[in-house]
């Protein structure tokens, strides 16, 4: 059983500050500076969790943030890593993955079924189509670790960008030396370490982030540093990977009993938290580190029962004789067979070939795996070093350096020297104006380590190789036998390395088994790809504040005041319609439509893209970019603009106005504005014409004042002569509206006399207010997007993206009139020649139905002889016309005036419509051209 020692020098706990907490409902106390795991250990709690598959009781393994067994539920937070999470007063800690509590876990029966659950078991069982759903429910309910609370709030976490010359990952001896050496050259240095304490500090000129880890290293030395309460994204000039090495377990039966820990875990518990792992400690080792741990524990007054080294000759004869002198029994060339459990389920003894050794704690030291994951992510390579028995860096990408245990150096002095060299080299790389092409691996001294720790198997017991996933040696072997004999297939079939610790203490041993079974070298076997995250990262850290750009026209507050019901349009919100007391949505929309037809309405169209093109070649540019011709457009006039892609597909439309000989002003759709502008910039760069583009989308507001009374209303606010003769249909004029410099476009999207009024953003509210004020005498109403859709549909105008789709060309949309095929060149022209010859695959037609058909909606299909023959793209009941009207994209044989179309609505019934000419309303466009008497 573990226990707390009296105060020791250098301990990381503050014994003056007690913290009370509960675990599984039982109250305990720890100290400030404890982690959840250390506090529980100090309290003698040996069983911290239940294993993933077999629900075996588990305790500390690594005490290094790799332990799936020390993962807890803390309040609403699932999967809290107890090894590193600081203890807090009042914490309520629960074990995860239990059914009915840690001690009496009702799922522990699974352990006894172990021999019937071979690797791949789930693939081989339950595969009846009929019964699988039932099994699956059972499996699902047993799976998973922590529990989430669906009531938990969204947590906003800041993120920040940071920059440094040298980023040092790992604050051990090597990392600290590297950081200090780099800082001494004047470099801006950042050091990141998982521990709460490191010896480097800001006084050394080093920006130190403790309790933090690098979750991933991405392209161009871009590192995700996870701090307790935020993520910092660091761009580093150079990186020193001093990430150390991860101690590996030794496989023997019941090697997962509580009390059996890594040698390093015992040392960390002792040095940081003054916790003794037991009163009678057995060390099982293949590496010098086992001896070093024994010495450390002995120095702290613990009793070492035995040291058993698996190698036939000792790797540390000096320490071995030292320990023998101090009365420790050292056995070389023996291996543990099985651990025996006591009444509490913890380790009580270990059986070897020769003897049975009583103990209440076992230290395992099965060699090391370089913590090279981040280096590999950065593009580094490793090769297996037979002498060191670990993968060591073999290729470093530009600006990346290594030092310390990751490079096979376990000697503090050597690691320190190497760290200094790496730190200086990194600083030099970061400051070089022309960076050296690559960095070389610094020569390392090899550190003798024993060969693979796998010694014997026995079908009766469980010898774990992956403590996350409850995988035994035989699972790996069986999978290889079944043909899953490459490292990646082995991983996928057995799930080795796929648990929360991502193979930190299992991948190396699995590779060893595979190499042994297939007679390959470790390098031939290789390792699975190292991918982020190094340690798991909460989504709140990754999400940060979750900024979502939102755009608003200057009129937005007015819309809200007027009762706007909003709809999304890209990153804009637009009024769908304006809610009126006591009126339904349909009534509101119908009212808005009616006022435009009968008097005057006002809509905010500020979301339209607005672009200017200036210069001697401005007309030529538009001629090449758009399907229509603009070089012959008269100054003061506008023309419809249709934008195609190279395949001849419609991508956008708008109105092009010629303000002056060399200046055009044109609009794009709301959704297309940013993309169209960017695309036109590219074409301008490509063609090299003498013109410049200016995007004023956000800088100009725009309203459409439409209806028979629009001229009467506007004339009161402007000096511009609005008479048809002076300002005809499709004209554009510049002048003062209210007090603002305005551009007035006489366009007719809604089919009435109307003016688009474009004014600078800062004047928009005043002009709008003025129009509304003047409009009172004409019963002006604001109208929203829905009313505009009805109005334009009555005029038969299509909406790109609704009435057209990603394959529609202008001929199919019946917009051939907007295309000037005889121009020398325009985007899409060559494809249109081809498409014109081929003929349309579909055609956009108008249809009408005499009565109201609320069931008929957009995207209902046209059915012809049982086959799909097209679809409704727009439909509405027109109060103006007293019938249902719409547009449909249908096969050409049906696109003949008078043809009866059959549409199928949601419930499967059909509706008959008649193909009819468009516009549906005011067929020869008299109203928009000349207005009507009100």
């Amino acid at each position, binding site marked *: 059983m573990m226990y707390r020692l009296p105060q020791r020098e250098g301990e990381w706990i503050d014994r003056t500050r007690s913290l009370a907490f509960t675990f599984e409902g039982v109250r305990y106390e720890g100290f400030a500076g404890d982690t959840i795991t250390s506090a529980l250990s100090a309290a003698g709690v040996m069983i911290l969790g239940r294993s993933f598959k077999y629900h075996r009781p588990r305790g500390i393994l690594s005490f290094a943030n790799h332990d799936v067994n020390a993962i807890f539920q803390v309040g609403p937070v699932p999967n809290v890593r107890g090894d590193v999470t600081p203890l807090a007063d009042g914490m309520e800690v629960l074990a995860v993955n239990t059914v009915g509590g840690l001690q009496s876990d009702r799922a522990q029966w699974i352990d006894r079924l172990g021999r019937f659950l071979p690797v791949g078991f789930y693939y081989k069982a339950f595969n009846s189509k009929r019964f699988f759903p039932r099994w699956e429910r059972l499996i699902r309910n047993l799976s998973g670790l922590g529990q989430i609370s669906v009531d938990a709030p969204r947590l906003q976490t800041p993120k920040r960008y940071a920059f440094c010359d040298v980023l040092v990952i790992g604050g051990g001896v090597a990392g600290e030396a590297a950081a200090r050496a780099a800082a001494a050259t004047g470099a801006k240095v950042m050091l990141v370490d998982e521990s709460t304490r490191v010896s480097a500090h800001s006084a050394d000129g080093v920006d130190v982030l403790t309790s933090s880890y690098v979750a991933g290293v991405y392209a161009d030395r871009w590192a995700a540093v996870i701090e307790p309460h935020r993520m910092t994204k660091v761009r580093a000039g150079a990186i020193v990977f001093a990430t150390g090495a991860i101690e590996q377990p030794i496989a023997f039966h019941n090697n997962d009993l509580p009390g059996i820990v890594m040698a390093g875990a015992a040392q960390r518990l002792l040095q940081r938290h003054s916790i003794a792992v037991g009163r009678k400690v057995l060390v099982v080792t293949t590496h010098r580190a086992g001896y070093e741990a024994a010495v450390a524990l002995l120095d702290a007054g613990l009793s070492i029962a035995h040291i058993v080294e698996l190698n036939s000759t000792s790797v540390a004869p000096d320490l071995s004789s030292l320990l023998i002198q101090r009365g420790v029994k050292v056995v070389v060339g023996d291996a543990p067979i099985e651990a025996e459990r006591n009444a509490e389920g913890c380790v009580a003894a270990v059986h070897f070939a020769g003897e049975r050794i009583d103990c209440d704690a076992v230290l395992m030291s099965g060699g090391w795996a370089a913590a090279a994951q981040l280096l590999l992510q950065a593009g580094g390579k490793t090769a297996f070093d037979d002498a060191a028995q670990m993968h060591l860096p073999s290729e470093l990408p530009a600006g990346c350096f290594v030092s310390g245990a990751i490079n096979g150096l376990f000697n503090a002095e050597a690691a320190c020297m190497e760290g200094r060299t790496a730190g200086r080299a990194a600083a030099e790389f970061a400051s070089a104006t022309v960076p050296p092409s690559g960095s070389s691996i610094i020569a390392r001294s090899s550190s003798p380590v024993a060969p693979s720790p796998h010694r014997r198997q026995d079908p009766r017991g469980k010898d774990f190789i992956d403590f996350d996933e409850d995988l035994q040696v035989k699972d790996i072997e069986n999978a290889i036998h079944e043909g899953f004999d490459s490292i990646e297939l082995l991983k996928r079939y057995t799930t080795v390395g796929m648990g929360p610790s991502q193979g930190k203490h299992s991948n190396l041993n699995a590779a060893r088994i595979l190499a042994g079974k297939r007679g390959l070298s470790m390098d031939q076997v290789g390792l699975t790809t190292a991918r982020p995250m190094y340690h798991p990262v909460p989504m709140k850290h990754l999400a940060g504040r979750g900024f979502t750009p939102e755009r608003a026209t200057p009129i937005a507050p007015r819309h809200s005041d007027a009762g706007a019901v909003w709809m999304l349009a890209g990153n804009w919100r637009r009024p769908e319609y304006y809610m009126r007391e006591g009126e339904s949505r349909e009534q509101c929309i119908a009212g808005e439509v009616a006022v435009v037809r009968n008097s005057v309405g006002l809509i905010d169209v500020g979301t339209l893209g607005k672009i200017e093109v200036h210069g001697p070649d401005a007309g030529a540019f538009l001629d090449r970019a758009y399907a229509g011709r603009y070089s012959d457009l008269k100054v003061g006039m506008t023309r419809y603009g249709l934008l195609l892609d190279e395949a001849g597909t419609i991508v956008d439309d708008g109105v092009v106005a010629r303000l002056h000989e060399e200046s055009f002003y044109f609009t794009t759709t709301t959704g297309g504005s940013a993309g169209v*502008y*960017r695309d036109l910039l*590219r074409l301008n760069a*490509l063609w*090299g014409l003498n013109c410049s583009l200016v995007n004023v989308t956000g800088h100009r507001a725009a309203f459409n004042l439409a209806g028979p009374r629009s001229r009467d209303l506007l004339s009161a606010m402007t000096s511009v002569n609005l008479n048809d003769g002076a300002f005809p249909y499709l004209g554009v004029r510049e002048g003062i509206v209210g007090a603002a410099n305005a551009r007035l476009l006489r366009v007719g999207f809604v089919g009435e006399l109307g003016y688009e009024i474009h004014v600078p953003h800062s004047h928009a509210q005043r002009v709008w207010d003025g129009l509304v004020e003047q409009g009172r005498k004409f019963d002006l109403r604001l109208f929203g997007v829905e009313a505009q859709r009805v109005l334009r549909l009555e005029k038969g105008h299509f909406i790109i993206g609704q009435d057209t789709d990603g394959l529609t060309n202008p001929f199919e949309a019946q917009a051939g009139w907007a295309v000037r095929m005889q121009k020398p060149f325009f985007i899409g022209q060559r494809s249109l020649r*081809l498409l014109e010859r081929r003929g349309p695959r579909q055609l956009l037609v108008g249809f009408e139905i005499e009565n109201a058909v609320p069931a008929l909606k957009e995207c209902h299909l046209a059915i012809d002889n049982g086959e799909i023959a097209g679809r409704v793209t727009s439909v509405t009941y027109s109060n103006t016309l007293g019938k249902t009207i719409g547009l449909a994209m249908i096969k050409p044989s049906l696109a003949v005036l008078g043809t009866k179309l059959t549409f199928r609505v949601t419930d499967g019934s059909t509706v008959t419509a008649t193909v009819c000419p468009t516009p549906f309303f005011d067929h020869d466009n008299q109203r928009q051209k000349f207005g009507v008497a009100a």
Partner: protein
Amino acid sequence: MKQLRCPLNGVRPVSEFAYAGEVRDMPDPDACTDPQWADYVFNRSGVPGVKREWWCHIASGYWFIAERDTARDAVIDTYPVEKLREVHRA
């Protein structure tokens, strides 16, 4: 995150840029056959390698050319579009 050196704005992360694919030479629309035109419109040289690409620095609207090895996602060179036209004339 990957970095690109914009010839106008300097080194910036790739999130500041928009990508518009490979620089492709348009065949003479009046002289080419339909299959040649369709090849230009749709087909791409999808194999990895060093390609000349269109990139736009979004905030400034500045288009430039990057030569990038798509196999390694390594930017080899970036330069203004004018240089592309010079290359074409030469």
